[in-house]
């Protein structure tokens, strides 16, 4: 794996994922602090990052526990927040070889930034690039959580430091990298409008899931023609 195409793609992923890993480090420091404010032990916060590794779900779950909600409600919020992994996994799935179990295991590596980085723009994904980008982010996500959980007292109030602005800024930078075409910009604005319209009436997580409906713009003939063109330019249509 060190010199083959897979290894090269993995290293490209590590490099491409590094800026996101640095941003993720700052974010996970604030997670480590906030989790303890919500009543989790330092160990529980660290284990959560180790085995959940999904920022928005982790923040959503501890926010509910911190506001006095039940554990069931917190898990439900995490599930809704992560429901976007259904369409993302459905997009990634056709690019994965192997049987169902092997594909399911590879699907665990999907996080937002890696998924966006690995998308080739023709509907297929570079899976080794995704694994590399996720590996870089996994390491710093753990380091940041440990730093925040054990050293949070030294840091002070995460809101006073503006750490809560990091997460949306992180996704905005990803979005700017994705929106190459006028069609993508229109879909982004449509997705944002759907989500914002649902915020006052739907539980957390549902607005983002529902925003995936904006991608149905892809059913138009002109959108399909653009994909066909991208696939032919790629030279290896799948």
């Amino acid at each position, binding site marked *: 794996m060190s010199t083959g195409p897979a290894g090269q793609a993995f290293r490209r992923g590590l490099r491409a994922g590094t800026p996101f890993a640095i941003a993720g480090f700052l974010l996970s420091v604030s997670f480590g602090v906030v989790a303890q404010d919500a009543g989790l032990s330092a160990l529980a916060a660290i284990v959560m990052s180790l085995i959940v590794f999904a920022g928005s779900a982790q923040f959503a779950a501890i926010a509910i526990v911190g506001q006095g909600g039940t554990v069931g409600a917190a*898990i439900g919020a995490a599930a809704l927040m992560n429901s976007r992994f259904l369409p993302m996994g459905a997009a990634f799935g056709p690019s994965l070889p192997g049987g169902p179990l092997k594909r399911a295991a590879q699907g665990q590596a999907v996080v*937002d930034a890696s998924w966006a980085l690995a*998308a080739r723009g023709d509907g297929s994904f570079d899976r080794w690039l995704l694994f590399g980008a996720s590996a870089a982010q996994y390491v710093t996500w753990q380091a940041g959580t440990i730093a925040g959980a054990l050293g949070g007292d030294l840091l002070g109030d995460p809101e006073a430091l503006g750490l*809560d602005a990091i997460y949306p800024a992180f996704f905005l930078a990803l979005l700017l990298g994705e929106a190459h075409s006028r069609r993508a910009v229109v879909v982004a604005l449509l997705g944002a409008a759907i*989500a914002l319209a649902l915020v006052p009436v739907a539980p*957390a997580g549902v607005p*983002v899931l529902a*925003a995936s409906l904006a991608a149905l713009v*892809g059913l138009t003939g002109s959108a399909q023609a653009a994909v066909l063109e991208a696939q032919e330019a790629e030279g290896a249509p799948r």
Partner: protein
Amino acid sequence: MSPSVVLVAGCALVTALLKAAGPIALGGREIPLWVTSVIVLLAPALLAALVFTQAFADGSELAVGAETAGVVAGGLVAWRSGSIVACVIVAAALTAALRAL
């Protein structure tokens, strides 16, 4: 079992199941052009929804705060410089500065 154990294990389980579902259902097969065309546009739709729900909402209320200005400034930096690290640092710094006023 303590509530923390249930919380952490429950979140890990639902996340793993959600990440597994797509690859199990749609693995390693040719997919029609119209599906691909929708898939390509999922990223801008989902990413924009994540950005806007966090920058313009506080819980279940639409709200503009210091973090909104921070995120907009971070976006400008990302657009001009292409650096995500600069983007998040500017976003956090401006948000913190506005809150300190």
